[in-house]
């Protein structure tokens, strides 16, 4: 070591003592590393640093001989200085250390390691800056741990973060020198609540290696031994980097702070270059913070309605909670909340969704490239994650809107280890209906409520368990006569076990139930009670194995038992003549096994390949109607039926499902992706209406109703600008759906003992292109998307009643070629922000009457071919103003107000058009659900 270097180390120690006296703007950190825009790649290092010293307030300390022959390695442009240094020094013995004053110390043979004690990183207490610095020391060979003190001064928190990040952590123990790699595992958590962060990404930019956390916030990453800079990112959290020195297998738990300026911005997706990095395409993510900022309808934050603003997601109209993904029907979406499926995602006939915003953390919507672990629905997977309870303290929160009141309580069971959350929401009982000047409405009742609960327990270092339940209820009574009730109930138990750093398993037991009941008692003779129910029980295990950093192998198996009561009608009055009718119960077993590997072939190429094999068994007891093959399948042609005993296999279906994705990086800012997936669907919704109605029921595939098979091929191009702050993407897809369910005109689906006579199998084809520009940060943020898509259905059966539109393809109900969305948020100050949504789409297809004819003394309508015309285009503008209470930390309650105006222009968007024969002739009418601006004021609090 040369003298000059020695001297400067001394001064380093000195400056460490006084470092914090300096004004903060002089401080440098890894985060604020200077971005080098000019390319110095291949140029002498000496010249490089001399130019830097002229340009920036930087000083380099080194021995001349070390860098004489050194040239700059700059693989990106622009590239942060720190990364350039790491890259340049990679194949040498050189290391560097940068202090707050912009001094860069280059060392040889040993890195400067200024370490604080490794895990757990103490978030509760952090070193008082001065104290910490005084204890900081520098010893070339061994870095003695820095013991953090337990006091914290809030004002210095940011400074402390910087210090943490500057510190190089040594991971693992120097044990097996023969191994060249080490595996880091750990949990990524929210610093404020201790809640695990799902799908947070951990990456080493230099190596183009990255992993994401699972639903427990757990990750495992294998790297070559040596120094690395780990980056950590998650929704709405400050990005964090951590320098490590990997010497062996070890643990690194990280806590991420909420974004300091979180109140200012819509965080759409803070995995900032994940869209470029990962093989996943067709994935849309939204977190609850974003949804909260968006203008809401009647003050209710709605998961489903938020998804409708994403490209490729549409609905048939307002007041429908179902959604259509890339031309698929509403029943082709797998909606999961904490792994358990939801069979009816809407409250009050679709005006609100069944998900309480206070207990939802975020959702992922897979539109294509669906991973092999999912199966059973052909269009999409909407995976909704519920929050974990706060592990630090007991917190209550809630809110009121004109429709509902909400209350959530969460807190630790064992501090920092186990927690619970319980959230409820209920509509006010009929308060609004009672105020309406119509007797029919005053005699009506409408109400709904839902309840979510979750407990998560840390059983040991290797075992975690969480238990969650969800229940929702709806009731609607019209004019004191017919009562509709429906319930969702589900629960899941998930157990995660770590076998070792490279292998872990999540096993789940899931049960879900949906039922409805319709009662009528107006006339004694016809009083009836109709019930429907579906039960779902699933056992599954998902195993992740990471043998090498460039392979992530996932495999698993699942088995689902379905039990359906397809409908039962009973007399509801002693004088009722209603004959008890019960359709045969249905049961089936759907099993699947899968294996997938995500393989990082090189820095440019990443592949995902998966194979799922699903096997479906429709089980007895059931008796199957037999029809003559040479006659149309109508009730008159039933020749008999074959009974099957309990447990016997009535009909098996199954087959392989291929999932494949590839990502080719075209540079550091853009990539090209390709994906293909096939899925099979064995459970179908019977609905010949355009939207979900409470009497729609689910039906299992049987010998006549074949499973639907969906194939999708998509290609996407992704390009980011301005340090990944602006994301753009184009995705193009083609889809083919075999045996798509179509219904004959005027089909009767409820309580039909031979429902196969009213259903025909069609062929669906869809294609489209989705364009998205997204800006995540800054005062103005949001996204703009445009989608061009088409979807066609073709029904060309053997008999006349199985042919629609002469057997030619016709636009399906959800075919809306042009779709445009704008979501924007503008922050005036930390307390005031303004949001706006604009949505435009082509009107959906409709079957119009084309001429009139006289029949039965009345002029009636002759209809066009199915879906030959369209309703007028849809356009809506929403607006909201969010006001946060002041941001004092010591405050009894944090409050916020939100004023939103839904449909500002009051445009009467047409939901449906219908025609009525009136004495004066045929008159067309248009029905618009929200014909005026709807203003709502919502109040939220958090204690």
């Amino acid at each position: 070591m040369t003298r000059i270097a020695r001297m400067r180390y001394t001064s380093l120690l000195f400056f460490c003592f006084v470092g914090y006296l300096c004004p903060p703007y002089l401080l440098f950190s890894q985060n604020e590393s200077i971005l080098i825009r000019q390319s110095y790649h291949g140029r002498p290092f000496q010249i490089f640093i001399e130019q830097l010293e002229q340009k920036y307030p930087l000083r380099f300390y080194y021995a001349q001989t070390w860098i004489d022959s050194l040239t700059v390695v700059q693989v990106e442009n622009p590239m942060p200085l720190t990364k350039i240094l790491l890259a340049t020094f990679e194949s040498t013995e050189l290391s560097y250390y940068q202090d707050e004053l912009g001094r860069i110390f280059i060392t040889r043979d040993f890195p400067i390691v200024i370490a604080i004690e490794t895990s757990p990183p103490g978030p509760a207490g952090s070193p008082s800056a001065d104290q910490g610095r005084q204890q900081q020391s520098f010893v070339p060979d061994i870095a003695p741990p820095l013991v953090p003190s337990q006091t914290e001064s809030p004002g210095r928190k940011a400074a402390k973060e910087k210090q943490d990040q500057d510190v190089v952590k040594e991971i693992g123990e120097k044990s097996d020198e023969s191994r060249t790699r080490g595996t880091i595992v750990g949990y990524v958590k929210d610093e404020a609540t201790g809640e695990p962060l799902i799908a947070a990404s951990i990456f080493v930019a230099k190596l183009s290696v990255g992993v994401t956390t699972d639903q427990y916030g757990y990750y495992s990453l294998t790297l070559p031994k040596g120094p690395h800079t780990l980056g950590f990112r998650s929704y709405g959290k400050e990005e964090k980097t951590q320098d490590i020195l990997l010497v062996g297998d070890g643990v690194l738990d990280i806590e991420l702070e909420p974004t300091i300026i979180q109140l200012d911005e819509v965080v759409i997706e803070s995995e900032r270059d994940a869209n470029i990095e990962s093989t996943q395409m067709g994935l849309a993510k939204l977190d609850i913070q974003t949804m909260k900022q968006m203008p809401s309808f009647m003050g209710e934050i709605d998961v489903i309605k938020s998804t409708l603003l994403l490209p490729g997601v549409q609905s048939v109209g307002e007041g429908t909670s179902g959604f259509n993904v890339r031309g698929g029907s509403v029943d082709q979406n797998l909606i999961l909340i904490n792994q358990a499926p939801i069979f009816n995602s809407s409250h009050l006939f679709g005006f609100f969704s069944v998900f309480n915003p206070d207990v939802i953390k975020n959702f992922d919507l897979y539109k294509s490239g669906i991973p092999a672990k999912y199966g059973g629905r052909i269009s999409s997977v909407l995976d909704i994650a519920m929050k974990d309870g706060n592990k630090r303290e007991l917190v209550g929160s809630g809110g009121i809107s004109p429709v509902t009141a909400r209350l959530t309580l969460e807190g630790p069971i064992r501090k920092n280890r186990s927690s619970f959350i319980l959230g409820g929401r209920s509509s006010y009982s009929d308060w609004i209906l009672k105020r309406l000047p119509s007797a029919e409405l005053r005699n009506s009742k409408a109400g709904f409520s839902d309840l979510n609960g979750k407990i998560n327990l840390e059983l040991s270092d290797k075992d975690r368990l969480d238990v969650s339940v969800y229940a929702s209820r709806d009731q609607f009574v019209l004019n004191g006569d017919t009562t509709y009730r429906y319930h969702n109930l589900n629960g899941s138990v998930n157990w995660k076990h770590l076998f070792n750093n490279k292998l872990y398993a999540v096993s789940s037991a899931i049960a879900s139930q949906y039922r409805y009941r319709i009662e009528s008692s107006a006339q004694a003779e016809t009083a009836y009670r109709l019930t429907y129910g579906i039960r779902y029980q699933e056992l599954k295990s998902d195993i992740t194995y990471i043998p090498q950093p460039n392979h992530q192998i996932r495999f698993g198996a699942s088995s689902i038992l379905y039990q359906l009561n397809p409908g039962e009608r009973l007399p509801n009055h002693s004088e009722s003549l209603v004959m008890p009718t019960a359709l045969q119960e249905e049961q089936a077993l759907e099993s699947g096994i899968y294996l997938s590997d995500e393989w990082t072939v090189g820095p440019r190429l990443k592949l995902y390949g998966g194979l799922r094999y699903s096997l479906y068994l429709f089980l007895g007891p059931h008796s199957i109607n037999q029809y003559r093959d040479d006659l149309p399948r109508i009730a008159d042609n039933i020749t008999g039926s074959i009974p099957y005993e309990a447990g016997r296999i009535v009909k098996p279906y199954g087959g392989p499902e291929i999932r494949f994705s590839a990502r080719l990086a075209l540079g550091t800012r853009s990539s090209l992706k390709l994906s293909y997936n096939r899925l099979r669907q064995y459970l179908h919704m019977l609905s010949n209406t355009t939207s979900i109605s409470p009497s729609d029921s689910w039906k299992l595939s049987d010998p006549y109703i074949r499973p639907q098979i969906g194939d999708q091929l998509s290609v996407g191009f992704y390009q980011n600008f301005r340090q990944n702050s602006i994301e753009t993407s184009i995705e193009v897809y083609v889809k083919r759906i075999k045996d798509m369910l179509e219904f004959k005109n005027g089909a009767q689906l409820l309580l039909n003992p031979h429902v196969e006579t009213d259903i025909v199998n069609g062929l669906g084809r869809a294609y489209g292109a989705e364009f998205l520009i997204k800006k995540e940060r800054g005062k103005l943020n949001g996204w703009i998307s445009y989608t061009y898509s088409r979807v066609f259905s073709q029904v060309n059966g053997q008999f006349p009643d199985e042919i629609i539109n002469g057997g030619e393809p016709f636009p399906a109900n959800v075919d809306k070629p042009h779709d445009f969305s704008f979501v924007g948020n503008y922050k005036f100050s930390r307390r005031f922000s303004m949001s706006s949504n604009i949505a435009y789409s082509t009107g959906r297809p409709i079957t119009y009457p084309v001429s009139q004819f006289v029949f039965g003394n009345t002029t009636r309508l002759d209809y066009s071919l199915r879906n030959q015309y369209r309703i007028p285009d849809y356009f809506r503008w929403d607006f909201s103003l969010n006001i946060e209470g002041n941001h004092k930390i010591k405050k009894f309650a944090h409050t916020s107000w939100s004023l939103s105006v839904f449909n500002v222009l009051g445009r009467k968007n047409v939901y449906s058009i219908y025609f009525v024969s009136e004495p004066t002739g045929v008159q067309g009418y248009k029905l618009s659900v929200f014909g005026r601006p709807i203003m709502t004021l919502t109040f939220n609090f958090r204690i």
Partner: protein
Amino acid sequence: MRVGAAILSICVLFGHWSCIEPFDPEIEGEGETLVVEGQILEGKAGAEVRLSRSFAFSETAPMMVEDARVRITDDVGNEHELISGGEAGVYLSDTSQLEGVVGRSYQLSIVTPEGEQYESEWALMKKGIAVDELHADFEEPNNGIDSARGMQVYLSAFDPENETKFYRWEYEETWIFAVPLPAVGVWNSQTRMPDLYPPDEIPRICWQTVHSSQIFLGSTIGLSEDRMTNVPIRFISDQDNHLRIKYSILVKQYSISEETYVFYQQLKHTTETLGTLFDPIPGEVRGNIRNVNNSGESVLGWFSADGFGQDRIFISRSDLPNIPIPSGYAACAADTLANSLEMGGYIIGGGVYVEDLLDPFGNLIGYIGSRPYCTDCRFFGTTERPEFWE
């Protein structure tokens, strides 16, 4: 429909009363499709076939198909030709020749003047059953807002043999009414004087008859007995003048096949229900008539062979509580028509002579007149007393 109404309620709630508006879509008219309405009834009740063509929205009435050859064939080889019966496009059987026999199948064949041949599917004649009971109750909806009180007509039917299962009803209602200012004569523009009616021909009291235009269907398929109890057929509001003097309703009950039921059900769905959020997707209703030489041609309509029963009841003013029933002529007032001027023109809609206007000394100084509908009951009805009227 209940759900439909519910959803409308909700949108009324959220949409601030502005959910439904008239809408006129731009549609290229098609039209010119053959429309067949054919029925053969059990026994001697006869057969009737109406032939017309569909028409564009811009037109008001269909073009009837005249001079077609219409035949009904049964499955034992009898053939009967229907003949045009007065009204254009209506073909009737000779009831002395054609008798509908339960258990036989019938087929309708049509040859249009253009030479196109059409055939229906075979229809099996169903057995008819009598209307068990037809009665009317005074009902006062208890919501207090909709002030519609009135008589609700109910029908009950019972088939002890449990074979009918599917029902369709039609009704004809007739009521007697009087105009407030009956014309005693009619203006003669040649003599420039009114010609007086003979006293027994003054058009003061008339009968008006209206046929049902909605489709009424019933099914007992889900019930343990083939019994329809108190099916609401018609509600006569006290705001109408139908009940002011006397009212009568004839209900025709057809026993129909399942296919006929399904056809009418679909027709009802697509043409009579409100397009709410939960309605089925409407579509073309396929009938049972085909072009023999061009199966791709769309033909509207249905031919059925139905069992038949009917019943009539009368409702007198005395059957109702003592409530006021409007005459429907509250707006009618007599007005002075100027002397020696042509009638009409002074009263919107044309004036009709009612009586002379005399001065205190008995000199004719003008005429008193009123609007036509206030003075001549034949404007709405007929002075001819129906045969069934009691």
